[in-house]
């Protein structure tokens, strides 16, 4: 699959919904270390709602699809990550305006907008041990891949690989935001829960275009 078209998007969200349902318990446990154990619920609910919104939408352009997904997540899962994901999809929707399909360049624009939306909404800096610490390298990698003319599969695989490393690196950081911030130095050594969600996101995108799913 070298491009994602509006026909593909509903299947992508079905897949995201399945993946987050499967990861529910693991994310609950992860959020339990220095958080309130709800991340698994939030993500499972949010993407189930997005999937349903997609089904209700019928035929629609890509930006409308992303917009509906964002709005559904905002309504269904208004926790920190739910709200940030919602913001990401809404901003990504704006970036995908008038796109018939998402190739590497459009995909890069989508994730840049996604990252910028999250950064603005959450007011976090890269290095603050948040989801931004994975979203930022994803956006950077995709931009570089687009500049280098890479195809979508290659670009997303590279972004995914970079995201995995970035997630690992969140262990060295000290949380500055969210419930984890109260734990200060104790968060060192613990992988950031929100960043884990970002890796799952990009991995699902990558696997989707590879046709693995």
């Amino acid at each position, binding site marked *: 699959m070298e491009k994602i078209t509006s026909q593909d998007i509903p299947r992508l969200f079905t897949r995201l919904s399945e993946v987050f349902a499967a990861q529910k318990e693991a994310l*609950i446990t992860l959020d*339990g*270390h*220095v*958080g*309130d*154990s*709800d991340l*698994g*619920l*939030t993500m499972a609910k949010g993407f189930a709602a997005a999937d349903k919104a997609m089904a209700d939408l019928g035929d629609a352009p890509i930006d409308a699809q992303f917009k509906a997904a964002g709005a559904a997540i*905002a*309504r269904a*899962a*208004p*926790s*920190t990550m*739910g*709200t*940030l994901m919602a*913001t990401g999809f809404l901003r990504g929707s704006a970036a995908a305006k008038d796109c018939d399909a998402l190739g590497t360049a459009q995909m890069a624009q989508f994730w840049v907008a996604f990252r910028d939306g999250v950064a603005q*909404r*959450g007011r976090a800096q890269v290095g603050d041990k948040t989801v931004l610490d994975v979203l930022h390298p994803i956006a950077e990698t995709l931009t570089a891949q687009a500049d280098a003319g890479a195809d979508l599969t290659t670009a997303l695989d590279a972004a995914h690989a970079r995201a995995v490393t970035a997630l690992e690196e969140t262990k060295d950081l000290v949380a*500055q*935001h*969210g*419930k984890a*911030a*109260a*734990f*200060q130095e*104790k968060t060192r050594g613990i992988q950031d829960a929100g960043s884990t969600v970002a890796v799952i996101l990009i991995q699902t995108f990558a696997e989707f275009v590879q046709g693995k799913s």
Partner: protein
Amino acid sequence: MKKFINDPEHFVDEMLEGIYLAHPEVTHVGDDLRCFVRTEPVPGKVGLVTGGGSGHLPLFLGFVGHNMLDGAGVGGVFQSPSSEQVLEVTRHVDQGAGVLYLYGNYTGDLMNFDMAGELAGLEDIQTMTVLGRDDVASSVVGEKHKRRGVAGIFFAYKAAGAAAAAMHPLAEVARLTQKASDRTRTIGVALSPCIVPEVGRPSFQIGEDEMEIGMGIHGEPGITRKTLTPADPMVDEMMARILAEQTYDTEGDVAVLINGLGATPLEELYVIYRRTAQVLEQAGARIKHVFIGEFATSMEMAGASISVLQLDDELEPLIAMDANTPFFKHIAR
């Protein structure tokens, strides 16, 4: 998980149905049970809106009522309400005098209230925001902006409710509320975790002889884990954290809140208060108002928190004022 619930997914809405059945003085906006408001608004008054996750009763919605708040966005257990819900509540409670948002300093709530405020602004509803961030355990002194809001937000509610009831304009209500919030310090301790219905298992494990000093109210583990001590030395240690930030030489009048986290018997809260009063007296404080009971819970967590509000001539009468909500009744002496 042993709970009196039906389907965990319906827990919040069934609880709300129970509340609306029991208390006709509160209702919801339109079809959404989670947009919680007073049945009879007070014309011309600044609207006071709070919100946050469920599982903390009487927080948050329990403080909506006479001389207290006007509305609350009700989230899932330990989850923020959505910006749409906050906006609905905002529209409903606005009486032309603007709306003060007053809630705990948590990222999810912050983002959703901010979004609601932006949208309200587009509809010419003026909003201002005051955050509860009273938990001394959740950051070092210089970083107060990072602190969590816990039970001490009650004092800010009380001040806001009284200030708005006195028909002050929005900026003045916000100033007084901010002052109450700034002068409140809370420290908590937990003995057991709690179970979020949809999760079905405890949020953390804790040994039979351990306590968590500085626990949050969302089942997150505490900041410091220690061996459980008798009540008096435990209170001494907790109060040391508060006394490190408050001195009573010139301003010695305080209001105290001893809050139960859910499972702790009222008897034990009075054992805690006994020592707290001794420590405060020793430190030169005069306790003008005392509130003891459950004000901000974390489901069935066993634990307690101590909040101290350093009063001044402006705040004292606000705390003293009568109040009447389905969950909180205060009768002035």
